[in-house]
């Protein structure tokens, strides 16, 4: 039922066609961007860039340099922190896979940006009436039975679109058939409760130096939203306990004062 995309970064040649396709399908404004130290361009995701290829050069033991290209975009978590924290429910996980955003509800509090463990939601800082922007997994294309525009554009088959369980099976088939080519883990299978964007890499994300730029490996297998929900589940009990305690103590003291007054009268 739930769609996902498997990103086999070993197949990526860094052509950035998916970046272009993403911008044109979503009608995102062109802007002057700059190269990073490693030739990534643009340097950061923003309200105008939902997808970017991170370039990485890794020194190999044989003295050669190997290139790695990793697409960074919304992970479309199975249980997204952004949707869990949004006070007005503007963000929502669809059962089809995409995490979508309702322009009409958002109040612009930016809690989703604080809470997202992958730092994906971006704000329209340039606008006087700003909204949150991020990859939509082309939910409107999916509704028409089409694949996301990045997947359709990719010339090397790096991006594979399909049902999540099947993609996971395929990912492990690839790891099993060519163990030397792949790092034996699928990023997104369990991270933060599992995501709809899945990654295969040649080496670990630590070796690629990506853990501080959105590919955290210290998140654990539980969705971040659970911490907030655990707190919220206690709120009604705290409310009743505090309220009851207050009323009880108030009447206790009142009764005590009455008894004291009576004793004084009698004595």
């Amino acid at each position, binding site marked *: 039922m739930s769609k996902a995309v498997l990103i086999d970064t070993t197949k990526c040649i860094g052509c950035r066609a998916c970046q272009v396709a993403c911008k044109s399908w979503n009608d995102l404004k062109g802007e002057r961007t700059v190269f990073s130290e490693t030739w990534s361009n643009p340097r950061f995701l923003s309200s105008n860039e939902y997808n970017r290829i991170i370039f990485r050069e890794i020194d190999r033991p044989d003295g050669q340099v190997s290139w790695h290209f990793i697409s960074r975009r919304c992970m479309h978590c199975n249980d997204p922190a952004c949707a869990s924290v949004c006070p007005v429910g503007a963000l929502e996980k669809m059962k089809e896979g995409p995490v979508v955003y309702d322009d009409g509800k*958002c109040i612009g509090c930016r*809690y989703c940006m604080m809470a997202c463990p992958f730092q994906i939601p971006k704000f329209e800082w*340039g606008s*006087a009436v700003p909204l949150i922007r991020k990859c939509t997994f082309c939910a409107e294309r999916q509704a028409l039975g089409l694949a996301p525009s990045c997947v359709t554009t990719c010339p090397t088959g790096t991006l594979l679109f399909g049902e999540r369980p099947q993609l996971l099976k395929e990912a492990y088939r690839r790891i099993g058939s060519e163990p030397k080519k792949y790092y034996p883990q699928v990023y997104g299978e369990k991270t933060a409760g599992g995501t709809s964007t899945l990654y295969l890499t040649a080496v670990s994300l630590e070796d690629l130096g990506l853990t501080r730029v959105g590919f955290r490996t210290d998140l654990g297998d539980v969705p971040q*939203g659970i911490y907030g929900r655990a707190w919220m589940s206690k*709120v009604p009990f*705290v409310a009743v306990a505090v309220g009851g305690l207050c009323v009880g103590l108030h009447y206790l003291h009142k009764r005590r004062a009455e008894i004291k007054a009576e004793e004084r009268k009698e004595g």
Partner: protein
Amino acid sequence: MAEKVQKWYPGEGKLTIGRAILYVVLVLGLISAAARLFLGLGATTNLNDAFPWGLWVSFDILAGVALAGGGFTMAATIYIFNLKKFEPLLRPAKLSAFMGYLVFVIGLFFDLGQPWRIWHPMVMWNPHSVLFEVSWCVMLYTTVLAIDLFIIGLERYGKESWIKFFRDIYLVLVVAGIMLSTLHQSSLGALFLLMPQKMSDLWATKALGPLFFCSAVIGGMSVITLESLLSSKIYKRKPEIGILSDLGKGLAIALLVYFAMKVTDLYARGATVWVWDWVHFWFFVELFGTVALPALLLSFPEVRKTQKGLYWAAGLAAFGVVLNRFNVSLTSYIGYRQFGYFPSAMEIFVTAALIAMGILIFDLGMRYLPIHRSELGGEH
């Protein structure tokens, strides 16, 4: 129209230097706020995708609400724990609490990307969201405080039958106020439960909720102390040293409890404390300079019973609460983000104007409402 109550304060009707400064700050802030509304957040603040929350959240919202904790702290002390001797401090506390929440709401209005949708959480619900709960509690609690001040206003105009109605339901208001405050003061800390990996070990704890609650009590008590000392000076009254030194004892206990909570939490999590860098510098200032030191100061009767001593101890404790909110929401992320953040001039102007506005409103309340005990006839 009822005529003005027989109140007169020095400097009334005249433009004193203090008031002139407040008005200038207010005007600067109004200009900045207008610029923010028309040009947008990106053009007027230094906020960015790496620091979506900045000065306005740290000070106007987190610190403002904590410092306004005096209202519920005093209400609980007097009506629930039956310590009636603190009654003279209740009304000023309510007034300063209302002022604090007004600062919060206006600050939040300018901080939101879509300010005119500030009412959305009323009709669009997400009961999973801590922020949803905070917004409801703050809405309701600000209403409770407004009713409280309304009752005080009724007293000024002598509307006895109305006052009787409110006095009959007063316990409901008190209990609702304490309950709502307990919930949102702690939940403001719980907002940060979701991002333990992004935060420094020093503040990323499951105990953020209880810690925020406890420090809100500290913030409330120290602001009441400062406010009482300052207003006795400004309005030329005798300071309530006796009551304040008793409150100082309470503050010392709250500080000690808070200190114990923090140390226990750090120890239990095995946080790396003894390192020297900027993040740890602010942590040490917070824990030792603004929690342990004022607690130590207040343990000496010589300090507790003098104006100067109380100024210092309460000042340090209040500063510590503010510092804690900045640490949790900003300092804590320094090691994590790719960009830096320092508030823009306009952000600072708006926050300064909110403080000035708070002081002016407080002054207005002190002048036009029966707040001080000398203005109350008998039972109240």
